[in-house]
């Protein structure tokens, strides 16, 4: 177990113009009109968020990474963003070379806004593109069209933001391999240093979840989405992107430092409604509506959950670490959980290593266990479930 204060923080900004049809995140729909600085809804939210930061923070080491996710953080008026960052700086501290990311959606910002972000210290933006096909954008219920995406890219380039990412989705209803290829090729032309490509998860409570059955038309079959995944891996790695995590690709030096914290099973703060945090051996998800979140903050923002067990820690280390291309360190696991645990892991992964889906690698005296890209990644749940079955106590 580890005992130190987190050096990463996730900040949840819940506002969205509309809810996309695949989305089941905790958001607050605000409509298409731009959010005014005078909006009491926004002011209330930012007040409680800052209040939470003040109640939680123990100033120790300054933060190395901050991630504004949502929702649509780019809907937040810039001076509200400034308020949050000032609070963070005051109560937690921000390292001089910190990575500060912000999620932005096409059609929600202009050049001035991007310049203001830069002056606030934001140094990485992640653009929610999803697809370069206008019909599919409509099917997803996105608020922007393809033209808005290109405008957004131009703005990012004009503002000279080098560290930016594009988000794509595969497995959308009516999406074909050709659609997928077109989106990837378009993204490659834009040449962002980072690309995330997520396979659609059909959540039951979403519009998609209610409308479609997994694997049935108009959703592509598993066989098709498998091909999309392989195509993505192939096209992007050919262009020099490293496939560093199941759904993430980056040029050298541009991996998302914040997201790596999760996968390396390290501590992080979470602020805002529905935000997840992990520190002091506690994983905690904040209340998921504004009202319940405000009540919780007003009662002192108390994290009241059972401590994780050593077994939780083991399973989480595996479940998260195996998402990374370099996998997990078995030497470290043997050190933390005993040689027997290491032996158990090897025994239950034997059938998978025989099929060349997982592999052991020795480097610098350390044994690492990793999934093969892309075959192992593609059935990572099956492999993890096998580990859980054998290791869970």
């Amino acid at each position, binding site marked *: 177990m580890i005992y130190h204060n987190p050096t990463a923080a*996730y900040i*949840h900004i819940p506002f969205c113009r509309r809810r996309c049809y695949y989305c089941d*995140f905790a958001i607050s729909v605000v409509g298409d009109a731009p959010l005014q600085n005078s909006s009491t809804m926004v002011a209330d939210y930012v007040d409680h968020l800052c209040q939470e930061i003040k109640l939680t923070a123990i100033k120790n080491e300054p933060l190395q990474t901050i*991630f504004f*996710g949502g929702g649509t953080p780019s809907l937040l008026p810039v001076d509200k963003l400034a308020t949050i960052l000032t609070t963070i700086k005051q109560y937690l501290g921000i390292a001089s070379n910190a990575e500060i990311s912000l999620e932005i959606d096409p059609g929600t910002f202009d050049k001035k806004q991007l310049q203001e972000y830069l002056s606030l210290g934001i140094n990485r933006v992640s653009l929610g593109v999803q697809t370069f096909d206008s019909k599919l954008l409509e099917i997803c219920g996105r608020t922007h069209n393809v033209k808005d995406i290109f405008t957004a890219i131009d703005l990012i380039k004009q503002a000279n933001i080098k560290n930016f990412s594009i988000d794509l989705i595969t497995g959308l209803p009516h999406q074909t391999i050709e659609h997928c290829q077109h989106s990837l090729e378009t993204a490659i032309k834009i040449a962002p240093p980072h690309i995330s490509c*997520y*396979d*659609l*998860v059909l959540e039951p409570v979403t519009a998609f979840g209610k409308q479609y059955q997994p694997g049935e038309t108009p959703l592509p079959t*598993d*066989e098709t*989405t*498998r091909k999309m*995944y392989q195509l993505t891996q192939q096209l992007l790695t050919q262009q020099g992107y490293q496939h560093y995590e*199941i*759904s993430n690709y980056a040029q050298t030096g541009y991996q998302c430092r914040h997201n790596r*914290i*999760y*996968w390396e099973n390290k501590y*992080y703060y*979470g602020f805002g409604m*529905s*935000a*997840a*945090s*992990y520190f002091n051996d506690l*994983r905690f*998800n904040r209340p998921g509506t504004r009202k319940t979140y405000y009540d919780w903050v007003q009662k002192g923002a108390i994290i009241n959950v059972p401590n994780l067990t050593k077994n939780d820690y083991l*399973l*989480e280390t595996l*479940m*998260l670490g195996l*998402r990374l291309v370099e996998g997990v360190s078995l030497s470290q696991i043997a050190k933390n959980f005993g040689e027997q645990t290491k032996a158990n892991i090897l025994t239950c992964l034997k*059938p998978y290593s025989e*099929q060349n889906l997982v592999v052991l690698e020795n480097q610098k005296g350390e044994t690492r266990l990793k999934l093969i890209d892309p075959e192992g*990644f*593609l*059935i*990572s*749940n*099956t492999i*993890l*479930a*096998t580990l*859980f*079955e054998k290791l*869970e106590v």
Partner: protein
Amino acid sequence: MTDVPVSRIRNFSIIAHIDHGKSTLADRMLQVTKTVAQREMKEQFLDNMDLERERGITIKLQAARMNYTAKDGEEYVLNLIDTPGHVDFSYEVSRSLAACEGALLVVDSSQGVEAQTLANVYLAIENELEVIPVLNKIDLPGSEPERVASEIEEVVGLDCTDIIKASAKAGIGVDDILESIVQKVPPPEDTVDKPLRALIFDSYYDAYRGVIVYFRVMDGEVKKGDKVRLMASGKEYEIDELGVLSPNQIEIDELHAGEVGYFAAAIKTVEDARVGDTITLVQTPAEEPLPGYTEAKPMVFCGLFPTDSDQYSDLKDALEKLKLNDAALSYEPETSSAMGFGFRCGFLGLLHMEIVQERLEREYNLELITTAPSVIYRVTTTEDEVLEIDNPSLLPDPQKRTKIEEPYIKVEIITPENFVGTLMELCQTCRGEFKDMKYFTLNRTCLIYELPLAEVVTDFFDRMKSRSRGYASMEYQLIGYRENTLVKLDVLVNKDKVDALSTIVHRDKAYYVGRALTEKLKELIPRHQFKVPIQASIGAKVIASEHIPALRKDVLAKCYGGDISRKKKLLQKQAKGKKRMKAIGTVDVPQEAFMAVLKIDS
């Protein structure tokens, strides 16, 4: 306990269909006679097992002695001998009826007479019991006392002029019932001078005192310390403890003809003191045992295998313990190439099977895989040897046998007339032979069919219920064996024959069952990383085949914002599912797959 003259003893039982309110009425009588203090009263006092209370049915019967002061000012002893309310236990019912002189026939006045009630009433009449009809639940809005009373008159042939209208729940009519037991049920015969004969109507195993035997003294008397002989088992014991049931056990020094009580005598298993056996004295034995003893024989068989092979010895211990208390349960070791080590177990019927299975899982914390139920087939070999086969995988090859016979039952179904068509269709598809149809009343038709037992031990009962929207009820009895053209249907998963999935079917249905079974298995077995063929075959000939496509993608793309809890839960669920599966070769097969043959719609 005071010594009561035989003339003031009344022994009775209650006959009722499930849910018609037997247990509630029994509770109410215990309360009214102050046998059980109000504060000790929990609902359905006589149903001791958790399972019974949960399901609202009586599995093991119980008895209770009540003191009741009648209107004539005299104090009477009323012994209620409860009967189990399910067709699986009809032998036990017949023995507890044999211990009584009277029976209450309790019928839900909003429903009517059901098949099971009818069968038990006939049993009571055969045993020359005085039957007192009672209409229960008369306080319900849907109650139709006149209609149901005339139905009882027509169907059962009982005079219902003075029928008692009651509501056990609301406490209506309970005094009338008690009074009419005193008035109408004859006292036992005074045969106290004859040599001892006592009828065992129930027994259970107690870890400290050995088997506790419940009995009714028919002739003579019995004292604590007496040496007794059980006439069927031939075993002899000295009575350590003698008492009455009120319904808690109260020790007493002696019991005489007409009385009901219990004794303990360091008996090691209920098999040695079976229901129906006659107790007599070693010194002055009776000449003849009481009539009607038979050994309750298992009719339905299935394999029970631990999901985790380490639990084999735990399963063995658990079965041994259950057997101490359940003479009708049989088990012997079974080795299956697919399932490993387990036990072939025999049960009285499907409910009995379900109960045992549930108790093993619940009380003994075992995770079990149960194979589809089978009956005993009688197979004649080419050497003219007759084999009894209770496990389809052990059926001799076609060239080594000359015929297969299977058990048949006579089924009586009582149903509202509008479901007659669909129920006849059901019986036909289950290879039934139509025997008779009787019109009891406008609303009640009785269908009589002869059916192979094998067709009924699948999901016949559920299908009958669903086709009749729950209105039909049934009763059956074994009528013997008949020869049929039966074949063994094997199932191959990933080219491996899975013995635990073999089933015996009629040749005419084999193709249909083979197809339906492979389709069902395709649904039930999860996808693997490779394609899994599933085939049904008769001998070497494949008659149906399906395949489960390979699982080529099983990945969760996103762990958004560090919220890993959902993904973790998902993996835990997936892992839990895997734990409950049996690995057959390289294929994980879930428990439900072994019951797939029951899930086929025909």
